[in-house]
């Protein structure tokens, strides 16, 4: 019997289970396949901070959310349409997010007394009527997987482990996706474990066929390919994109890439990723601590490499002193801060935008440097290149802010041609004639003169230097002049970056001003609000220091300015202080990104329904 196919525009699914259930893997596979089908997509993995929380416990729940669509989308979705819950704990933790009337696919086999107790359920939710507002599809996933694999010579444990692939197969059927991408992946992944490969393949196909034959499902859904700009695409996470952006910048500039870093969640993957690219002459130095990480990068920059250091909040704090050194020696250096929930160790696996003021002011002395921020996972690629361009052109440290949400989330990246990307050509000083270490060009940048160049031997360091000559100077007037020059140099970058663009018109009644990863949620909220007739404009800051030249003009055009941030108001403070502009704040500090609805509701609140319907 052929089943009806229903076309839908977009779907949000969430896979949730115990940390040991392989949910991240299931989610990633679904994502890969969805990407190849040509949907626009956005993902959000969410896993516990503990590596192995007790099995079945509430703190051990691991989830992976994926939003896919036949039109352009910007976020992994506010609330899932479908929840795949592998155990009671996963159901309990994720149910509050599910859309009213949403579908729950549950593994009934795991709803035994022990697991119910671990999940702190007093009665079985599958039986007590508490799920009556949802479309519950109970399936004995474990049993069916065991049945499928009964003839295989594998341990019970190994067989049981395949149940996530059974579930994945079922979801592939439900959303009309091909299973061959995952079959192929299994073949390479388990090349050396043929039985495991076979078992997972069988489970996957059995899940798919179950969808086809069972009476439980009468409809399957279809999400057509999205109309995205023409080109070749790949799926990419923010951390991957950051890493590839730097390798690309290294190719563009002809400079050797040097990463000095110390592992920290959620930044470590940049280190992992870059460690793979030895054939690009990339140096990844896993240092003994973050201070050594940045210090080695400063040494490498002095020696002529494109030097970066990657970290997250606590590590960023440790780098402050050295960052001042890079700044006063006026060497190019990029610090990537993948922000996470703080303070201190805070919420290591959760996202936050609360290091903005640290990036601005987290150093002693007058120490301005360039700060830019990525707005989406794929944008991390471009921002890594941009950070490299600014650092080398202006001989300055650049802080690139991303965050846990961008780092772990993924979306399609249209792969640009190499030629499309900005030029980052770098010239080392080689001519000894008239050379001084702190000579300046029209941008106020000093020459990059690297060891190994005859005739340019010179000494630099953290002590204040005589302008131009670079010798140590304690002269009060010289110090003040140098402070001003270093500031002016950073301010000059404003002439070399795009103006702030406004999505909207001068007559809109509210301007949303944002930075970083809130971009996606704001864009979707904006679209919804406009559909409702609200007159809202949006401007997104990619460049935070210096701000774009025209920021004041933009702010002056609007009476009402709303700044949504995942902190208690850091950009708001800067805008108020710098431009004496009163702003409305929307702040969230829960370790989670904004939901579209939260921003939408704030818009409605601010505009008070005056121009909506």
């Amino acid at each position: 019997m052929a089943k009806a196919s229903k076309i839908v525009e977009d779907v949000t699914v969430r896979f949730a289970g115990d940390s040991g259930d392989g949910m991240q893997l299931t989610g990633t596979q679904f994502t890969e396949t969805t990407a190849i089908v040509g949907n626009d997509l956005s993902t959000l993995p969410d896993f516990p901070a503990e590596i192995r929380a007790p099995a079945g416990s509430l703190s051990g729940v691991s989830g992976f959310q994926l939003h896919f669509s036949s039109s352009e989308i910007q976020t992994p979705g506010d609330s899932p349409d479908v929840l795949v819950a592998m155990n009671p704990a996963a159901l309990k933790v994720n149910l509050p997010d599910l859309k009213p009337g949403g579908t729950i696919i549950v593994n009934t086999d795991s709803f035994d007394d022990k697991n119910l107790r671990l999940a702190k359920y007093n009665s079985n939710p599958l039986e007590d009527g508490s799920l009556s507002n949802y479309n519950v599809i109970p399936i004995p996933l474990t049993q069916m997987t065991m049945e499928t694999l009964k003839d295989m010579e594998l341990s019970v444990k190994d067989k049981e482990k395949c149940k996530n692939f059974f579930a994945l197969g079922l979801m592939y059927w439900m959303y009309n996706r091909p299973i061959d991408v995952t079959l192929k992946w299994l073949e390479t992944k388990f090349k050396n474990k043929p039985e495991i490969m076979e078992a997972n393949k069988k489970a996957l196909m059995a899940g798919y066929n179950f969808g086809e034959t069972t009476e439980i499902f009468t409809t399957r859904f279809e999400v057509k390919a999205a109309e995205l700009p023409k080109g070749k695409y790949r799926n990419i996470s923010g951390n991957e994109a950051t890493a590839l952006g730097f390798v690309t910048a290294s190719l563009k500039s002809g400079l050797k890439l040097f990463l000095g870093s110390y592992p920290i969640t959620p930044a470590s993957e940049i280190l992992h990723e870059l460690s793979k690219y030895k054939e690009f002459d990339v140096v990844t130095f896993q240092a003994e601590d973050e201070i050594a990480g940045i210090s080695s990068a400063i040494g490498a920059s002095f020696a002529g490499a494109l030097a970066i250091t990657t970290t997250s909040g606590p590590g960023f704090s440790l780098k402050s002193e050295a960052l001042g050194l890079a700044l006063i020696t006026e060497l190019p250096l990029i610090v990537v801060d993948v922000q996470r929930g703080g303070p201190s160790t805070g919420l290591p696996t959760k996202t936050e935008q609360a290091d903005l003021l640290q990036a601005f002011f987290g150093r002693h002395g007058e120490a301005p440097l360039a700060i830019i921020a990525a707005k989406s996972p794929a944008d991390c690629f471009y921002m890594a290149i941009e950070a490299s361009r600014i650092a080398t052109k202006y001989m300055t440290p650049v802080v690139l802010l991303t965050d846990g949400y961008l780092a772990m989330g993924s979306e399609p990246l249209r792969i640009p041609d190499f030629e499309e990307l900005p030029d980052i050509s770098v010239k080392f000083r080689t001519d000894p004639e008239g050379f001084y270490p702190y000579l300046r060009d029209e941008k106020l940048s000093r020459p990059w003169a690297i060891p190994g160049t005859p005739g340019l031997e010179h000494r630099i360091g953290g002590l204040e230097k005589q302008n131009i000559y670079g010798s140590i100077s304690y002269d009060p007037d010289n110090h003040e002049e140098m402070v001003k020059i270093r500031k002016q140099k950073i301010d000059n970058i404003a002439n070399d970056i795009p103006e702030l663009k406004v999505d909207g018109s001068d007559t809109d009644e509210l301007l949303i001003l944002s930075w970083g990863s809130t971009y996606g949620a704001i864009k979707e909220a904006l679209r919804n609000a406009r559909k409702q007739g609200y007159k809202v404009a949006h401007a997104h800051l990619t460049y935070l220091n210096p701000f774009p030249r025209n920021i004041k003009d933009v702010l002056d055009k609007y009476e009402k300015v709303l700044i949504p941030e995942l902190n208690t108001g850091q950009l708001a403070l800067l805008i108020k202080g710098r431009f004496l502009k009163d702003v409305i704040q929307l702040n969230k500090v829960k370790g989670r990104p904004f939901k579209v609805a939260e921003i939408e509701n704030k818009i409605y609140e601010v505009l008070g329904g005056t121009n909506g319907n």
Partner: protein
Amino acid sequence: METKNLETKPKYTAKDFSSDVDVKWCPGCGDYSILAQVQRTSPDFGELKENIVWVSGIGCSSRFPYYMNTYGFHGIHGRAAAIATGVKLANPKLQVWVATGDGDSLSIGGNHFIHACRKNMDIKIVLFNNKIYGLTKGQYSPTSEKGKITKSSPYGTVDFPFNASKLADAAGATFFARTIDREPKHMQEMLKRAAAHKGLAVVEVYQNCPIFNDGAYAPLTDKTSKEDYVLYLEHGKPLVFGKNKDKGIKLDGLQPVVIDLNDGKHSVDDCWVHDEFDTDPTRGFILARFIDMDHMPTPIGVFRQVHKPTYDEEYWNQVEYVKSKKGAGDYNKLMYSVNTWDVE
């Protein structure tokens, strides 16, 4: 980056390595001697001037790079080894030296010091040990002896000192030598040996700070006493010291004992013969412990020199290996290494 062929190396003199910056240490500071010996021996370091980089942390001693007419980087307190590591890894053709104080490298920079030793980075660390914090005006340092009275320890320190030779040895340094500011010839020899060593080399220099810790090494430098307090280490030679070469050191199991070579019971043949290249670190460690023991002379010279692959060499070998397997990297390979799809 291309570097000039060494065969065309100019004939340098000490003057070529002297910068035009006024040297501003206190009169009588041992740092002057270290600077003079480095400048004197630099022509023998086997490297072009432009390929030599001096990196330092913070402290009196860390002003060193300014006075050398080579590339120089004056860093932040304690981090010189880490900065030097980046310089060397980014361009292995450079000869990288670190000038650091005992406070700089063993206190705030202790972590970087031991890890540089462990990794066998090909950098040379000249450790100026004056057993005091000079620049901050006289607080005890991690090498100050227990009970030391200083500005920050008016009743004497209650903490135990570090022994740089033990620390370097235990951390895996492949070269450790000790010398004294008042022994120019000896110091020159040590510096040249360090320059020639492939791998991490530590040269500890006992340096007098006449302002805050005058005479810390007086018994070792005083004409009348030094022969009884200093033990010159020479490869293949028995450990003999004393004014008339009348004392020797014998190993009794793992216990070093001083023997009288004139007592009729002992002769030079009983003495421990120094082997710099001993691959077993045990004896090196015993030597390192001498300064912690009463009645033992202070060894001066190369304690140990062993050969291990250096970090930078291994790193770049790995790069070459990966290139031979994968071919040189290019942009399209980078971006298309995963599943991709077309949007028409």
